[in-house]
């Protein structure tokens, strides 16, 4: 190769083949505008995650608004479900306290009523002090849109913008670790099955078939429910154990897709001439598998990987929609986009729409609550989809038409 008679005055330096391949991939990726847009969105999310991780942005248990006039202390408000006592001072502006752990009842906050209770009890709140970084949608607008800058997900007030910013790193962490581990296991298992063939392949692929015939979300539900019952109660508050259970529960479900994908790719790669050449020159099986077969059958994994990363928050959201939040996370509300949007839409259905029926004067639909988390989810999923499409064009020569 290097002795090719170049016509120029100086011999051209060819880059290393790997670098060359990367450059070529990037060249084809670059030509896909939508793929670039997707990449830009994902990089922005990564940037926000880094920014939110570097700055201590408050996200939970932050009273979004506090009132100066809320009636006498220790007086239960009418129409409020359950027993609670008001522990706020009676006069003067309230200093918003930053709680570390959410109290069992959101009403324990200073002036921390659920919005529907404000609507129902007709209490007016003269001054609203919004801390930094909270959205301020139109204040007290007419129905059905408008309202205060509250965010109530799972009945605990939190700062929506801070929550979304803090949520980006957890969202990325869950998605990447689950799909990454699943892809790694699937890659190894699938490559082994495809490479060795025979009984090994038959056994592995039957197991994969079994796993694939259980719907993903049902499997995750069962695994997470069993894990949460099987783990000792003391582990419930442990961040590490909870995260491990969530990631592990998903990975158990996730690897078979990759095993099947890689195996079908390996079946064609193992018949290639270069594998034959490696075998003829006396390479050991392990070397053939890891140096020749896996690197050459890995590209569909990248494509599928980028596609799957977007589905994880959607699945976590679906689980949270079924009230799995306390089982999945060490405390709720938890900064994860799927969780945030799921709890906001179920709140929307449960509380706010009912209040629309009962309220005589009108009702407020907190549209910002599900719009912004929903948009975050939507753009994340769609951008990884676009990246996956562009990667397919760049990596698969047959697709370049």
């Amino acid at each position, binding site marked *: 190769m290097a002795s090719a008679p170049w016509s120029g005055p100086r011999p051209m330096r060819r880059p290393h083949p790997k670098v060359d391949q990367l450059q070529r991939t990037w060249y084809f990726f670059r030509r896909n505008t939508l793929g670039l847009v997707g990449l830009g969105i994902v990089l922005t999310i990564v940037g926000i995650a880094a920014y939110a991780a570097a700055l201590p942005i408050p996200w939970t248990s932050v009273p979004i608004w506090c009132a100066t006039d809320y009636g006498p202390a220790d007086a239960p408000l009418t129409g409020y479900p359950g027993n609670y006592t008001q522990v706020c001072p009676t006069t003067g502006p309230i200093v918003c306290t930053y709680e570390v752990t959410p109290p069992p009842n959101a009403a324990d906050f200073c002036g921390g009523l659920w919005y529907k209770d404000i609507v129902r009890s007709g209490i007016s709140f003269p001054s609203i002090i919004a801390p930094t970084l909270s959205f301020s949608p139109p204040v007290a607008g007419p129905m059905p849109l408008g309202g205060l800058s509250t965010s109530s997900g799972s009945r605990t007030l939190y700062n929506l913008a801070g929550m979304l910013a803090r949520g980006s790193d957890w969202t990325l962490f869950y998605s990447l670790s689950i799909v990454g581990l699943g892809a790694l296991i699937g890659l190894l298992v699938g490559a082994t099955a495809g490479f060795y063939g025979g009984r090994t392949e038959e056994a592995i692929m*039957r197991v994969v078939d079994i796993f694939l*015939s259980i719907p*993903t979300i049902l499997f995750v539900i069962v695994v997470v429910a069993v894990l949460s*019952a099987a783990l000792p109660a003391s582990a419930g508050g442990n961040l590490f154990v909870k995260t491990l259970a969530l990631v592990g529960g998903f990975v158990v479900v996730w690897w078979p897709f990759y095993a099947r994908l890689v195996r079908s790719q390996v079946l064609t790669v193992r018949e290639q001439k270069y594998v034959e050449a490696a075998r003829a020159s006396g390479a050991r099986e392990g070397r053939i598998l890891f140096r020749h077969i896996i690197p050459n059958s890995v590209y569909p994994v990248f494509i599928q990987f980028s596609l799957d990363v977007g589905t994880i928050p959607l699945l976590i959201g679906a689980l949270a929609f079924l009230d799995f939040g306390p089982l999945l996370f060490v405390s709720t509300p938890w900064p994860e986009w799927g969780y945030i949007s799921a709890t906001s839409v179920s709140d929307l259905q449960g509380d706010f*729409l009912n209040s629309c*029926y009962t309220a005589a004067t009108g009702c407020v639909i907190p549209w910002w609550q599900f719009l912004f988390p929903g948009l975050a989810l939507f753009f994340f999923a*769609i951008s990884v989809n676009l990246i996956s499409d562009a990667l397919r064009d760049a990596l698969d020569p047959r697709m370049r038409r």
Partner: protein
Amino acid sequence: MWTYVARRALLVVPVVMGVVTITFVLFTALPIPYQLLSHYGAPTPKQHCGYSKQCTCATLDPTSVHDGQCTCISPPTVTTPTGICQNPVYHEYVDALGLEKPIPEQWLAYIYRTFTFQWGNVSNYSTVAHYYPKLAGEPVATAIAWELPYTLELASLSLVIILVLAIPLGNASAVYRNRPIDQASRILSFSGYALPAFLLGSLVVAGVILAFLPHTGFDVKSPWCPAGEPIDQEFTYSLPISSACYPGLAVGASYPGWISNGIHSTPTGFLTIDALIHGDPWLSLDSIIRIILPALVIAYGTVATLLRFVRNSMLEVMNLDFVRTARAGGVPESTVVGRHAGRNSLNVTITVLGLTFAAFLGGFPIIEDVFKLNGVGELLAIAADPNPAVDFGVIFGSTILFTFIIVAANLIVDVLYAYLDPRVRLG
């Protein structure tokens, strides 16, 4: 072809056994009290703390017997090792279920119980019993059998919508590649992938409710229930909520007798059919109207994945030689697309439909929960709700059922494929 079908049907056996084994592993991973709970449907009795001869404890705390283990009050230093100071009823239960036998024996017993539909009982204190009091204490298999027809009705309607949408749209976007219809179907499939069903479904429900809110002035009632039901409830729930919707019923009776418990109907269990049998054509229509929106939401998500495959397979077929030959021979374009190419890409469509069937059914718990429908998915969604208590019997039972349906669907798809492909059918 029949040897192929037989060989394919034989492959179902290891998959089914494997699925049952996976659920067995998960079941065994549960703590024993949960296993008992999921099988017997009620918590183990609390008041029996056993003073056996080996138990050196003088006073046992009778209220502490949550998992069969008694707490010793005096002397407090005496710990109660497993097997001693246990409540005798608990032990009887454990023995009856064989939970202390070797694992292979337990496995065989579990498989036997699974195939004889002994899936346990609905726990009296679980979320399922909380929402459906009539199901409390019933066998899980019975509860699922009552709910299954609703799910089948929803599934068939959405399958029809999926096939009606995906195949023509996919073909059209391949034929008119990069033209507006292709771009529109691309947007449809991207957004269907990125919009989770719980979000889309909730927004649809909220939109319907908002549109027909009393304040907005469109305070419309269901045509056949003018007294009782607001029209937005017509698009959620499987049955009318208000008893006023049943003219001719006695005051206080909420449903006609053939919808016992407000859950299952007789004789077939399919509300659409039973209503016709009992001479209630409007209720039959009503039950179809109620599943139109959820079916559309499910179809949206499934069409999104299916559409790409139909388009790509159609594109590949359109480039093949026999299509070019047909065109060159002067066959009209519509015949080329419909008969030559379309027929061949149909095989791929059916295969992909079989592959996406698991994801399709997996969406049912969410959708039925969003639209508050009856169905196995809703049963599973409620059973998985940890507040107040998860019902493992229902979770395992409905998961096994869904998986069996998927295995059967894949078998049907493969047989259909064999039938459609002359190389397999005739060879």
